[in-house]
């Protein structure tokens, strides 16, 4: 299930947010969208999900235009973990995960034993089984982020759209979540589109990076080509040192500005 975006223009509240954005995520691949705050990463993801109406250009998920699909069909195609999810206080982790089954539950019906089993399995994969009965408002930041991911997994959609899935996680949980997404991609053949603001992390896991800046694609391609010290300097205003890691993927380190501090 490939994702294809061509010449996408999106306006929000009359202001241009995306201009001429194109990207291709082949079926079963992982593409990460990077870029400074406000570049339009989340908006791009929402356009792929059919949640915002493009002003121009085309979005195709598995060959279909998500905006014109019914919400149910769309939800069976793309699962979404938003950057700032609403976690209804009092709802349990299990019930929240079960929300991911909505596109399969008859409108006025109730969930089946299979829906419950899929939700339980999603929790299991994310090491959350022990928290299944815990209300959402009594979770740590990292646990919350994993619960949102569990809901997306329970959706069993061939395309995963994850908006900053690792922001609130410590380094161990970042690795755990990214490894898990990688395993899903490999084992279940999922197509993954994520935004990640940790550039090294993006470069370690994604097959391809798309650098958004000011609503336009500034660079795209394999991590080694996109993550250059010049590009990071130009678009993030940061001075970094880029060196290939053990597997050849780029590793970024910040350089302290000389003359600052001490």
């Amino acid at each position, binding site marked *: 299930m490939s994702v294809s975006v061509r010449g996408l223009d999106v306006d929000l509240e009359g202001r241009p947010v995306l201009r001429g954005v194109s990207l291709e995520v082949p079926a079963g691949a992982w593409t990460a969208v990077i870029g400074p705050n406000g570049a339009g990463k989340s908006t791009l993801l929402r356009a792929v999900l059919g949640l915002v109406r493009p002003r121009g250009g085309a979005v195709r998920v598995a060959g279909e235009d998500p905006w014109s699909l019914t*919400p149910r069909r769309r939800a069976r195609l793309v699962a979404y973990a938003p950057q700032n999810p609403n976690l209804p206080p009092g*709802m349990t982790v299990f019930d929240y995960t079960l929300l991911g089954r909505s596109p399969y539950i008859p409108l006025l019906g109730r969930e089946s034993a299979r829906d419950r089993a899929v939700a339980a399995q999603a929790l299991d994969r994310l090491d959350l089984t022990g928290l299944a009965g815990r209300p959402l408002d009594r979770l740590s930041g990292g646990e919350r982020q994993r619960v949102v991911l569990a809901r997306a997994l329970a959706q069993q959609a061939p395309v995963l759209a994850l908006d900053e899935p690792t922001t609130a996680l410590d380094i161990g949980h970042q690795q755990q979540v990214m490894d898990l997404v990688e395993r899903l991609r490999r084992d279940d053949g999922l197509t993954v589109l994520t935004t990640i603001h940790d550039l090294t992390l993006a470069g370690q896991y994604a097959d391809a990076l798309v650098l958004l800046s000011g609503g336009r694609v500034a660079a795209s391609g394999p991590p080694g080509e996109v993550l250059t010290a010049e590009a990071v300097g130009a678009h993030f205003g940061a001075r970094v040192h880029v060196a290939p890691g053990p597997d050849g993927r780029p590793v970024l380190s910040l350089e302290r500005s000389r003359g600052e501090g001490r």
Partner: protein
Amino acid sequence: MRTREAARLRPLPLAVAVLVLLAAMLAALLVGPAGLPAAGVVKALADRLPFVHVDSGLAAVDRNVLFELRLPRVLLGAVVGGLLAVAGAGYQGVFRNPLADPYLLGAAAGAGVGATLVIVVLSDRPTPAVPLASFAGALGGVALAYGLGSTAGRGGSGTATLVLAGVAVSSFLASVQAFLQQAKAEELQRIYSWILGGLGLADWPTLAMIAPYAAVAVVTLLLHGRLLDVLSVGDEEAASLGLSAARVRLTVLAAASLATACAVAVSGLIGFVGVVVPHVVRRLAGGSYRIVLPLSLLGGAAFLTVADLVGRTIVAPGELPLGVVTAFVGGPFFVLVLRAVRGRAEP
């Protein structure tokens, strides 16, 4: 494994709620100016069940009190209380706001204007047009409050703004209603006793008049419990989960307004039931709308039955208007709910 079960109404809380309601209704049937013997009342009621024949031993006059005065009033109280509470729960799901209530949202006042219009213009008796006009009025009231609230509250802070807008709309609509009533001032006492908020009009035809609308509203609301749970993650996420958020909103809004309209058309303006009851239910049994909606229906019925009982006994032989009793309980309670909501929003 218990944790692998979804939130849904379990038998125990349901049974407790039913028992509480039945106990409240029985108490309300027994207490009144004409003392009725408990055993006789129970037997007389059982006698009315199909295939059951018992001799109640009640005198004809007592039977008359029971079946023509007490029973319709108790039933109407239960129906109105259930409708207001389940409507409140529905509005709370639609607006994702635990303070939403038919009374505070302007729905009840709108329904009052609608009903008054029909009575003033068309006839001086309850007609099927009354609930329909109330319905239109209720929808108008909510739309006004919501429109005003979202204009005034641009950029967030929704919870309180919506209620403030609702209060403003309610006051405005109440004055419209007062104006309409003045047009027929001479008949005010006789015809519009319901405006004070009470069950004085209770009789079988009144019950029959609202029954079909109430049934449609309640069934629709109860069917939407799971969808309201999905909606609790917000419109955009609900859409990403396959829900047509706007359609669910509109359906629940219409059903809650119809429920409100039925209640207002026969009992006038009774506030706070829709805030108090769902809040208590949430605390006791869980926050899923699959639990909150049905238990609010039962709890609201029990609550208003007791409130009416208190209203007509505490100052006997006088009678406190029902709306006064619920406001006495509900006002302070409202502040508690507000505090709980605020405490959660600003940890």
